[in-house]
């Protein structure tokens, strides 16, 4: 189970660095007390995850992830944070019992996941890898998955119109 068989290619080093970055970003997001810092470390995690997608040769997903999550959602979060007041930020009183229990729980979860992943074998044959996978995504979206794709678009349009309607109502001066 602990036999890892790793050769140190450029790809492996990149994977290792990105994985560490993703974890560090997530941990910092939990530990920071200022909300802007939290939002930034979440963005850092998103970028590291995008790097992992690149390593898996899913470039399209990777850059769309950065474009949407880092470029749009994080900026929206930071906007929202800046528009509100944060006077009550500060350290919470420590709760030793809860923290110990949480640590034990985390270790158990890690053990289970580690055991599960190391013992799993993947009998399914990997699908043949397409060279131009961005084109493949487009093909699939507009042939086999056309209807779900259109349904999602309709859903988004409805959400969009709903958001505008809500914003308009608040503008009314009564």
């Amino acid at each position, binding site marked *: 189970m602990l036999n890892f068989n790793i050769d140190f290619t450029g790809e492996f*080093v990149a994977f290792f660095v990105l994985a560490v970055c993703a974890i560090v970003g997530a941990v910092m997001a939990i530990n920071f007390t200022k909300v802007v810092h939290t939002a930034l470390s979440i963005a850092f995690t998103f970028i590291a995850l995008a790097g992992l997608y690149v390593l898996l040769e899913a470039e399209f997903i990777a850059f769309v992830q950065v474009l949407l999550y880092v*470029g*749009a959602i994080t900026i929206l979060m930071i906007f929202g944070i800046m528009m509100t007041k944060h006077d009550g930020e500060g350290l919470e009183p420590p709760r030793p019992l809860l923290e110990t229990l949480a640590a034990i729980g985390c270790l158990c979860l890690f053990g289970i996941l580690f055991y599960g992943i190391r013992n799993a074998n993947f009998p399914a044959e990997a699908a043949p890898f397409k060279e131009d996978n961005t084109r493949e995504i487009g093909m699939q979206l507009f042939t086999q998955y056309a209807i779900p794709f259109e349904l999602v678009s309709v859903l988004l349009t409805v959400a969009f119109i709903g958001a505008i309607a809500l914003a308009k109502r608040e503008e009314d001066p009564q």
Partner: protein
Amino acid sequence: MQHFWDQPLSWGTAGIFAAAAIGVLAFVIFFVTYAIYFERKFIGWMQYRQGPNRTGPLGLLQSVADVAKLLFKEDTIPKKADRGLFILAPVLAFVPSFAVLAFIPYSLNLQFADLNVGFLYYIALSGITTIAIVVAGWASNNKYSLLGGMRSAAQMISYEVPLVMSVVGVVMMSGSLNLRDIVIAQEGYFWHWNFLPQILGFGIFLIAAVSELNRTPFDLPEAESELVAGYHVEYSGFRFAFFMLTEYIYVYAIASLTTILFLGGWNPPIPQLDFIPGVLWFFLKFAVIVFCLFWIRATFPRLRVDQLMGLAWKVLLPLAILNIFLTALGIELIG
């Protein structure tokens, strides 16, 4: 560069990666130094002035002297600023701007990373710089810089949409997001370059690009007359230099991107001229675009804040969508 990726990472290959990165950095810094010099010179001539002409022959060392001055300047951090973020923001702005340069194909064989989704890569990374600008504005704890940062974020997010949409037409015509394939699809005479069949997309792209660069007439984030200097009011010394460097590296990236997407990249205007190396053609077109950016800056007045958003959402975006439909029709009817 691609084949080094699959080899074991030895000190040799790591050295090659590092050397290539440093080479690009040196070249880009050289470009930025002289882009600033020529910008000041051109604007000077256009305004019937001399421009810098004292430091070195013809003033050629002016930018070098300016950078040296910035290096030796006292590095101030406001007392009430968020210290960590204040220090982080310039770095966060610079790193993506430099990383963007990895995908540019200068000629058929000179390219660092052959990405499947070259254009998306640019858009995605430039979004990170937007975060850095907002953070810089917020961390300075100054109302002018906060306003500048906010304006900048709103503007960059709005203009990203028409920028992406205007390129969809090009992507449809060449059937690929890969920048190399887009250039290869434009081979032939200069009327095969995308800027003629995609003239609408080209126009939208140029306007949105100038706005993404935060340059006049869209330089509201740093409008001196209203906001002192926008998001970098509190920055001085080398941190300020980093923001300037970022801006000019994006000028470099956008000029390269325009060359690749609309002006045929390394292709000569007529195939009989292909004895001149492609890199030279690339940089010739690149220089024309950079000159046009300076020219626009010297000529146009600044937009008002309320006109700015209206232009992006009510004019450029519908036009970009119209362009997509027209391109689809064109491909169906003409082939």
